[in-house]
């Protein structure tokens, strides 16, 4: 039984790594197809290379591939259910295969990130404090501990640097309101006030590549 379990573990790891490798290096034809899809369709809202000027739509450039994959799958499977997800992405992702999702994620993850923006110095300073050190009095952990010290993202934890502040605030609100499932975040930001959201979002928007 022990050796069977060991074989099972090895197989599981192999399948996972194989899947990850395929995601990281999609076939050339698929990559080209995904690139065309991104350039002709996704770019209408998300901008060329995933950089856009509208806070209604997130920048996707340099976003982590695992996060993008997870979100596209959640849109397709209709498990992410915030208002904009229903209005836009449930439809757009509905016919995407796992392979195409991986290829799109790979494409955007390799694009140059959006530049940071300047903003209100007071908000930025307060936001930096929250991001880097958290809020001890409210038991709010430092955002950077998961999202990276420069908010560059790490694996399933998304890149936040350079993201539109209004988009970030909206996502925190939909997570607080349980319209979007994000297990870790539900606990972390449950007591975050709107003012604190604005502060940390304004700080994150200033972060460039």
């Amino acid at each position, binding site marked *: 039984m022990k050796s069977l379990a060991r074989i099972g573990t090895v197989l599981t790891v192999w399948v996972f790594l194989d899947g990850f490798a395929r995601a990281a290096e999609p076939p050339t034809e698929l990559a080209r197809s995904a690139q065309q899809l991104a350039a002709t369709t996704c*770019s*209408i809202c998300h901008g060329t*290379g995933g950089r856009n*000027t509208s806070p209604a739509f997130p920048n996707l450039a340099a976003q982590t591939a695992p996060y993008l994959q997870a979100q596209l799958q959640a849109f397709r499977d209709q498990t992410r259910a915030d208002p904009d997800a229903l209005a836009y992405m*449930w*439809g757009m992702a*509905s016919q995407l295969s796992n392979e195409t999702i991986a290829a799109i994620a790979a494409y955007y993850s390799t694009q140059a990130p959006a530049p940071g923006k300047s903003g209100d110095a007071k908000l930025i300073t307060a936001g930096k404090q929250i991001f880097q050190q958290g809020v001890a009095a409210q038991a709010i952990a430092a955002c950077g501990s998961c999202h990276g010290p420069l908010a560059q993202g790490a694996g399933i934890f998304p890149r936040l640097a350079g993201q539109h502040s209004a988009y970030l605030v909206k996502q925190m609100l939909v997570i607080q309101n349980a319209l979007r499932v994000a297990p870790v975040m539900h606990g972390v930001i449950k007591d975050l006030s709107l003012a604190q959201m604005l502060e940390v979002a304004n700080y994150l928007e200033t972060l460039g590549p």
Partner: protein
Amino acid sequence: MLIGRIRLEYLPHRWLGSQVALLVLCLYSSAAQAVPSFARQTGMACSACHTIFPELTPFGREFKLNGYVIDNLKQVKGITMDRRETLSLNSVPPLSVMLQVSYTHTATALPDSVVSGALAKDGEVLFPQQVSLFYAGKIADHLGAFMQLTYSGASDHFGFDNTDIRYARYVTVEGGDQGETSQGASWQSKHSLLVGLTVNNNPTVQDPWNTTAAWGFPYSSSSVAPVPGASTKLDSGAGAIGQNAAGIGAYLWLDHAWYAELSVYSAAKTGGVHPLDSTQRAVLKGIAPYWRLGYESRWDRHSLFVGTYGIQARVQPGNGLALRGPVDRFTDIAADAQYQFIGDQHLVTVLTTYIHENQRLNSSFENGLASNDSGSLRTLKATVEYSYQRTIGGAAGYFSTNGSSDALLYANTGGVGGSANGSPTSRGYIVEANYLPWLNVKLQLQYVGYSKFNGAGTDYAGIGRNASDNNTVYVLGWINF
């Protein structure tokens, strides 16, 4: 709309003294559609393409310019042995239905159409005002259509309505081939260029902005209230070309910002005698070129468009006159602008258009239908719209048409549609309140007020009727499914 075929006739003089003509003038309402079949095809909510239907968002404009083909449905496919695609069809047909039910009340009742001195019923319910069936969506890769069949309650007719069939594809997309752009990258890798063809039956129905007539404000209005007798060819109203034409055009959409289109139209009338002869009215002669240029800038949650468009149309009056000899030539040149702010809570749109029409009335003058062999018209419209959470909103608009007087062209008919002083001037305002309990259901209360109607504010038609007597309260229930 079906009745557009009637209202959009060229009517320089033929409505003189005719109660039937008055009815024709009354058979007016604005085109206005938004179709759930697009939502079913894309899987996206109405709010992706519309602020408040039928006004388009930037994404809606992209969807239209792309040929109505963005789809997220399973496809019925066909290929050849060398993998050439021969069929790509939505698994669900893109069909929709629209229903409009309305109530109209004018400040003073209209004269009875037969009994002299009597008045018509004051307050008109139309159930329906209009029912439309749409095929709106993808036909094949890069090929899509917006086709509308409409039943009009006022005219009790079912017929062909606004139609726009498109083929569009990207010649190049920014970042499409090279991924990241760079200083050394080719022009193709730094620009997006969409090229499209449109075949349609109404100049401006192909336009993606809401400043032009086919999709302009007001998006719906009464089909039984009196409307001014004079309008430019590219405006909505009694004198416009509307659905009396068929055209084909080519357009370019560069970098999601620059738009250029050249189309040509010829006469295409439904009903009546065919081939077209002297019994038809206002028949386009030859080819009428239509052009459109514009630039749209998008930033943050804002978009701003400025553009220009125009048409040159040669028209034979017909309606008893043979379709030969001299023609009336109309040259419309227009400028327009549109601003949109689309926030999560608040949405604001500002629309404006100005049309100048130069008229060379050789045929009408020679046949005693116009006092002068030339003239001009000018139309100005400006509208501000607001919506809160796409649920409660309203609009306020100003409209004006004026130009050179002509005692025959804008004649004193002795009826509500006449002009005592031969002036085409009409101006007024529209205020509107909307409530949308769902994105595809609109309840609308509209008030149209006139300060001048067919040339004057008081006793404009020589029958003791003032412009304000035509002020209209219009209540509309409008559903799409």
